[in-house]
């Protein structure tokens, strides 16, 4: 394997081999590994937030960071094992005779080493972190020894590492039970036609419900429908905005009412305290048991109503008697 100390991480094409040549050599290495059955590990390395760092401190600092990472990569690997090149701001490398455990260890070392690096940019000191995606072949790992397939897998893995927040290594995991998609394009065409028919029926129904016949769109049916969809989206957006405003208004009102309620409760507590009234569970108990003032008042009122009725009934009786006597 000593014949492959080939590294071109400069990305400027100024090295011994061009990117194409290195890619070809990587393909040869894959074929060889398959033939002899030894493991290989592929690695895609990305510097986290490199674009933002470049925007903040300039493109020169970006190049400096990439160079430093490249050096760290070389420092941490056996020269004979490294075969890699740079794609934009990413590094793609292939490690022959490297199984999963060793590759993950290497990734961790790289992340640790890069974390120690600091770059002085004027008054600021910049630290960088790495996201690393890994894929493996041989030593019980599934998959074909195919360079394009490996590259696709490490790309997926590195994206997972970035989306998880960076500063980590993620090994590619093949998706489980991926359903077979039968002739997606044909189905989509059919679905599109069905939707179009359905849409046309709906539009006709809407016009019919308004007591109008479907107008002739003059061959611009799609444009008209697109316009209608655009209008609907605008109306929807406006409705959403209005709802948001109303929610905001209600939230503010609620906050105001809550504040007012707090003040009232505070005042009530103060008044109850001043008058020595027990506002606790005991008062609730009294209400539930019908011993509160309200219950007492209701009972009292019922008695009073009965007394008024009795007095009026007596008056009525006297009146009737008097009327009876008068008529006799």
């Amino acid at each position, binding site marked *: 394997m000593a014949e492959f100390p080939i590294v071109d991480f400069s990305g400027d094409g100024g090295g011994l081999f061009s990117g194409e040549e290195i890619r070809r050599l990587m393909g040869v290495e894959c074929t060889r590994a398959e033939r002899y059955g030894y493991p290989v590990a592929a690695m895609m390395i990305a510097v986290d937030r490199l674009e933002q760092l470049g925007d903040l401190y300039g493109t020169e600092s970006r190049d400096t960071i990439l160079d430093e990472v490249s050096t760290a990569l070389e420092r941490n690997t056996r020269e004979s094992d490294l075969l890699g090149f740079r794609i934009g701001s990413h590094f793609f490398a292939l490690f022959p005779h490297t199984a999963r455990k060793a590759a993950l260890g290497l990734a961790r070392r790289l992340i640790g080493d890069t974390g120690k690096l600091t770059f002085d940019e004027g008054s600021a000191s910049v630290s960088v972190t790495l996201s690393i995606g890994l894929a493996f072949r041989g030593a019980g790992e599934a998959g074909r020894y195919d360079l394009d397939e490996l590259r696709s897998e490490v790309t997926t893995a590195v994206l997972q590492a970035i989306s998880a927040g960076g500063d980590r290594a993620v090994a590619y995991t093949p998706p489980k039970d991926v359903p077979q998609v039968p002739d997606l394009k044909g189905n989509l065409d059919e679905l599109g036609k069905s939707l179009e028919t359905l849409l046309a029926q709906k539009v006709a129904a809407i016009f019919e419900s308004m007591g109008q016949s479907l107008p002739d769109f003059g061959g611009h049916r799609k444009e008209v429908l697109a316009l209608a969809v655009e209008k609907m989206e605008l109306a929807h957006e406006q409705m959403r905005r209005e709802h948001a405003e109303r929610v905001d208004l209600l939230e503010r009102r609620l906050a105001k009412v809550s504040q007012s309620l707090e003040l009232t409760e505070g005042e009530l507590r103060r008044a109850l305290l001043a008058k020595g009234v027990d506002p606790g569970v005991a008062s609730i108990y009294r209400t539930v048991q019908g011993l509160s003032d309200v219950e007492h008042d209701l009972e009292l009122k019922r008695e*009073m109503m009965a007394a*008024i009725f009795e007095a009026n009934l007596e008056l009525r009786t*006297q009146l009737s008697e008097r009327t009876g006597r008068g008529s006799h």
Partner: protein
Amino acid sequence: MSNKSDQAKAKDQDKDHGVLYIGIDLGTSRTSVAASNGVRATVPSFVGYPKDVVSKKLLKKDVLFGDEALEKRLSLKLYRPLEHGVLKCGGDKAAAEDAEGNTRAARDLLTEAVRMAKPRKDELVYAVIGAPAQASINSKNAILEVARESVDSVMLCSEPFAVAYGQDLLEDVLVIDIGAGTVDLCRMHGTMPEDSDQITLETAGDFVDAELSKRISQAYPQAQFSVGMIKAIKERHSTVAETTEPILVDLPVNGKPTSFDLTEQIRGACQAIVPPIVEGLGKLIGTFDPEFQDKLKRRVLLAGGGSQIKALDSAIEKAMHEMLGSGKVTRIEEPMYGGANGALKIAHDMPEEYWEKLK
């Protein structure tokens, strides 16, 4: 007879779309109505009938009420059917002049009061009428007899009790209800007030009018005025405040409007009702459980049209301090409708079965 009963049944069947409850304060000076449909109205308790065919044709009405009746009184036979809070036609005053006319006027006034409440044709009308605290049985019967023709079911209750009930003050409260004919004092102590809990005084609004007339006549014999003018002056300027702007009123002297300073006369006439009230309060407080007398003194409620006399609450408080040691008087918010609102509340709270039995 059976025909009449059938008619009554048919009438009841027509009225099967709910009940309109009405509280009526049938006052000597004003009649106020509060109804469960939200209507509140008041009318001066005057009823007028055209004197002859000519005036009937001119007025285009068979009967006039309130301010309109007062305004056209020269063409009318004018009635004020209540005196000292009771009907002139009934009971103690039955022998009074024109009993028949007053009965008719009282009936028409109550019909007008019910009309003001705007009942629907398909509604039953149940009314509670406030009567003076110590009205005699005959007086109450007279009111009932007249009212039964205007409503489907009617009950009477003590006027000051209605005021207290309307304010939800049922315990340890003293109510002063100052009307035109009577001042009613009532002691509430958690039960239905009995006769011993109530006092009716005749030193009310009409008494103030008479007192004011007397004082003006004494001070300014040349001034000309009528009872109506005196009433209007009292309603506008009444006060018992010790410091006030001079009250200057124009009264005719031999046909020429002349300005008179009536400050002292008005204050003196209004002040004249305070001692009897405080004396009455003293009786009610003095016969109450000694343990609760202080509480009673602190809870005195002032209601009725007469309570609108400026600074009357302070004057009663001051007199209570002098005669009873302490006192706290609170004026209710709507003195004109205090009785009617309370009567309406009673009408609402009265169980349906009671109304049915009194139909």
